[in-house]
C-alpha cells in the first residue's frame, strides 16, 4: 500500500482506493471541497441535515435504523475548513463483508447508502423540506453557541477570528450565526446544488472495497450532475505580522486560557513544510519540547502548553491553560523559548528527540483504515502522494540549520487571553 496519486475518474473527481486485508473494517470518505463563500452558513446546516434524514429516510429513526442494519456502521457527516477551503464530508466505516451474517455484502450496501444520501436530500420543488430546515437551523445555531462550552476550543476560535479577521479563514462566529438565522429552504437547496456542481470531489477508501466498484458507482453518480464546473481552491498565506496585537476577553471560568498565533513565514503548503514541521515540534510538540519542559515541567505554570503548525495557512497556534496572575510570566517564557529557537540555542538532544518522535509516528500511520485515509486525504491537493515512510525520510533530512532558518521567519501576530470575569487586569 504505497499509492502515488489519486486517480481522476471524472473532471474534478479524484479517487484513491487502497486495498489491504489486514483490517476487520472498511473505510470510505467522500469529500466535497469548495472555497469559503456565501454558501458557508447553508453548508453548515446541510451537513447536519444530511447526516440525519434524507428523501428515502425521512425520520431520524428510519435513517438510523438503516445504519444499524449495516451492522452498526459508523456513518458521519462533517464540515471543516482547511485554510480557505471548506471540506464537506460524508464518511462510513463498516465491518468487512466476511463478517456478514447473511449473503448481503455490507460494503456494497454501505457505498450505495452513502451515494443515496448524497444524491437525495429531503427536498421537493427546489426546496429542502421546511420542517427539516427549521429544525436543523436550530441545531446549527445551538452547535455554534455550544462552542463556548469547551473553553480551550473557544479561546482558540476567538484568537483565530481576531487574528485572521481580514481573511475568509477567520470566519466570524457572530456573522455566521446571523447568516444561519437568515437561511431558508430555498437557500439550502441552492447551496446543495452549488456544492454538487462546483466542488472538487475527493473519494478515499481503505480496506477490501473494490476500486472498480467505487469507480463505477461514483462515476455514475457524477454523471447525474449537470453543469459541473469546479471552482479554484486557493489558500491565503500571510508571511509576516507587522506588530503584536493583544486581546483580552472575559468569561465565567476557573482557569485562564492563553492562545498565541504566529505567522510561520510559509508562503504556500510546500514551502519548507518539513523543516517548519520539525521546528514547531521542537518548540512545542511532545513532552520533549521546549514549551513542555520549561513552561510546564520547570516552572509548573500549566498542565498543557503546546504548539502546532497549520499547514494550510502557515500559522502556528500555541495553547495553554494558566492561572490568570501568571499571564505575564507564561507569555514571557513562551516568547523566550521562541527566541531560543531563533538563536539556535536549543540542544542537539531537543533536535534529535523531535526527529526521532516524528519519524516514529509517521512510520506507523498505516494501522487503521481511517488513519490511512486521513493521512493520504490530507495530501489530496499535493503534487504527489508521500507514504508514511517517505514522510519520515523527509523529516529526517531536515537539518538544525534549516530549523533555525525557519524559526527566524516566524513572527508573533496575536496574543489572546480568556480570563475570569470581573478580575483586575494582569
Amino acid at each position: 500500500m504505497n499509492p502515488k496519486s489519486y486517480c481522476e475518474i471524472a473532471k474534478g473527481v479524484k479517487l484513491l482506493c487502497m486495498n489491504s486485508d489486514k483490517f476487520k473494517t472498511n473505510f470510505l470518505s467522500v469529500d466535497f471541497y469548495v472555497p469559503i463563500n456565501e454558501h458557508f452558513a447553508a453548508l453548515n446546516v446541510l451537513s447536519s441535515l444530511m447526516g440525519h434524514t434524507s428523501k428515502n429516510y425521512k425520520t431520524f429513526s428510519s435513517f438510523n435504523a438503516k445504519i444499524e442494519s449495516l451492522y452498526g456502521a459508523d456513518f458521519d457527516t462533517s464540515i471543516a475548513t482547511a485554510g480557505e477551503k471548506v471540506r464537506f464530508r460524508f464518511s462510513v466505516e463498516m465491518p468487512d463483508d466476511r463478517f456478514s451474517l447473511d449473503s448481503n455484502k455490507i460494503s456494497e450496501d454501505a457505498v450505495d447508502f452513502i451515494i443515496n444520501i448524497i444524491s437525495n436530500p429531503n427536498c421537493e420543488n427546489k426546496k429542502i423540506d421546511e420542517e427539516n430546515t427549521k429544525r436543523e437551523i436550530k441545531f446549527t445555531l445551538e452547535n455554534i453557541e455550544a462552542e463556548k462550552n469547551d473553553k480551550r476550543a473557544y479561546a482558540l476560535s476567538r484568537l483565530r477570528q481576531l487574528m485572521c479577521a481580514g481573511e475568509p479563514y477567520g470566519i466570524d462566529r457572530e456573522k455566521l450565526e446571523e447568516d444561519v438565522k437568515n437561511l431558508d429552504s430555498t437557500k439550502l437547496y441552492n447551496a446543495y446544488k452549488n456544492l454538487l456542481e462546483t466542488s472538487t470531489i475527493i473519494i478515499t477508501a481503505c480496506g477490501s472495497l473494490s476500486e472498480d466498484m467505487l469507480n463505477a458507482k461514483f462515476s455514475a453518480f457524477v454523471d447525474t450532475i449537470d453543469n459541473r464546473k469546479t471552482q479554484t481552491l486557493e489558500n491565503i498565506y500571510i508571511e509576516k505580522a507587522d506588530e503584536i496585537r493583544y486581546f483580552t476577553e472575559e468569561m465565567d471560568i476557573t482557569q485562564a486560557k492563553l492562545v498565541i498565533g504566529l505567522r510561520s513565514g510559509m508562503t504556500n503548503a510546500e514551502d519548507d513544510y518539513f523543516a517548519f514541521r520539525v521546528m514547531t515540534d521542537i518548540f512545542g510538540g511532545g513532552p520533549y519540547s521546549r514549551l513542555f519542559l520549561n513552561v510546564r515541567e520547570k516552572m509548573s505554570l500549566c498542565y498543557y502548553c503546546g504548539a502546532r503548525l497549520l499547514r494550510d495557512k502557515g500559522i502556528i497556534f500555541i495553547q495553554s491553560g494558566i492561572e490568570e496572575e501568571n499571564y505575564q510570566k507564561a507569555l514571557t517564557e513562551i516568547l523566550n523559548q521562541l527566541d531560543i529557537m531563533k538563536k539556535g540555542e536549543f540542544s542537539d538532544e531537543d533536535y534529535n528527540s523531535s526527529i526521532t518522535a516524528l519519524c516514529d509516528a509517521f512510520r506507523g500511520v498505516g494501522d487503521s483504515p481511517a488513519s490511512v485515509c486521513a493521512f493520504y486525504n490530507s495530501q489530496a491537493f499535493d503534487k504527489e502522494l508521500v507514504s508514511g515512510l517517505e514522510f519520515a525520510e523527509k523529516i529526517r533530512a531536515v537539518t538544525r540549520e534549516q530549523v533555525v532558518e525557519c524559526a527566524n521567519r516566524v513572527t508573533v501576530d496575536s496574543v489572546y487571553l480568556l480570563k475570569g470575569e470581573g478580575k483586575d487586569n494582569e
Partner: protein
Amino acid sequence: MNKIREIKNDLLNDSYFEIDHKSGFKIFVYPKENYSSAYAVFGTKYGSIDTCFRVEGNEEFTTVPEGIAHFLEHKLFESEELDAFARYAKTGASANAYTSFDKTCYLFQCSGNFEKSLEILLDFVSNPYFTEQTVQKEQGIIGQEIKMYQDEPGWESLFALLRAMYHNHPVRIDIAGTVESISHITAELLYECYETFYNPANMALAVVGNVTVEQVLEIADRMLKPKKSKKIERKFQIEPETVVEDTIVRNLAVSMPIFAIGYKEKITTPCRTLKETLESNILLDIIGGKTSNLYEEMLTDGLINTTFDIEYFEGFGYSAHIFNGESTEPEKVRERINKEIEKMKKQGIDKETFDRIKKKHYGGFIMNFNDIDSLANALIGGYFNGDGLYDQLEVLESITLHDINNRLNAINIENSSMSIIKQN
C-alpha cells in the same frame, strides 16, 4: 517458568497469548500481522475509588487523600536520573498514562525501537522515586489540571450527578482530587500506595501490534523481578439503594443547560457481569438510542438536540443507566424518559427492535478489533474484571429478549438523580 496459552477466535481469525509470567505478573501479547506499530500498556487495578484499604495481615485500614492514585501516576514518570519522558525521547515512542476510577495505566506506542521502549516502561513503573521537593512541584501542575476540568461542563455534569446519586461510594469524588486534598499528599504516602497496589497480583501488561511473544518475554524476563504478591482489602462504606439528592444544579458558562440523568441500580454484588453490562448497553439503545421513539419524539419536539447520549456506567460497587445531553427544559426530558421506561415495562420490548440492536452490537464488537490501543486497553480492563477479550461475542449471542425485559424491569425510576449545569 512462564506459562503460555494461545486464545483463538475463528470468526475474527485472530489469536492472542495469555502468559503467566514467572515473576507473578500476567502478560498478554496480541500480534497483529502486517501492522507497523506496537502499543503496550502496563496497568494496576488501582484508581481514584481506592481511598481506604489494607494489605492482608495488617490490622489497620489506611485512608489516603483524594486524588492520590492520579498523583502517583504523574510522579512515577520521575526517577533519580532521567525522567521517563526524557528516556522515551531517545526511542521516539509516544508515551502517556491515565488514571480512572478503578485503574492506573502507563502506555506507549511506537513503530521502531520497541524493545528499548518496553524496557523503559517496565523499568520506570517498577522503580518509584519520590522526594518532598518533586511532590511539591507536581502540586502546581495537577492543580492546573484540576482547574482545567472544572471549566468542562460535561465533566462537571457527570461528577455533579455522581455526588447526587452516591452517599458514600468514592466514585463521587473527582479522579484528580481537589487542590486542597492533593496538598496533603507526601512522598511517604505515595510510597505506601505504591507498595500496596503496584504488585504482580494486582497488575498486568498487554502488548498489541507488530510484536511477538518472544520479543516481549525476552524483555519481561529481564526486567520484571519476582515480587511478593499482596492481597489487598478495600474498604467501602455501605451504599444505600436510594440517592442523595433528586436534582443538583451548578452554574458554569454554558450556551444551553447541560443535563445528566442517572438511574442508580440496586446491586447485591460489587461487580456487574459481562452479560449484565451488555444487556444494559442494548437496553439503553432500545430506550434512548438513535432509532428509539423517545429520541425521535424529543428531537421533533425540540426538547433535546443531537448531543443526547446514553451510557451504562459501572465499576466496583456502583452502576447506573445514564442519559445526558443539552436542553432548555431538562425536567421535561426527565419526565419523558421516566414515562418511556414505565410504558416499555408495561408493553415489553418488540423482537424486531431487539434483533436490530443486537446486530449493531455484533458489528460494534468486530469493529473494535482494528485498533491496537483499544485492544490493549480492553485486554487489561477485561482481565481486571475477570473477562477474556473474545468472551463478549459468545455472551452477546446468548442474550435473549427476555433478559432485556428483565433488565428493564429492574430499573427503579424512584432511585434516580439529575444534574443540571447552567449559566448563572
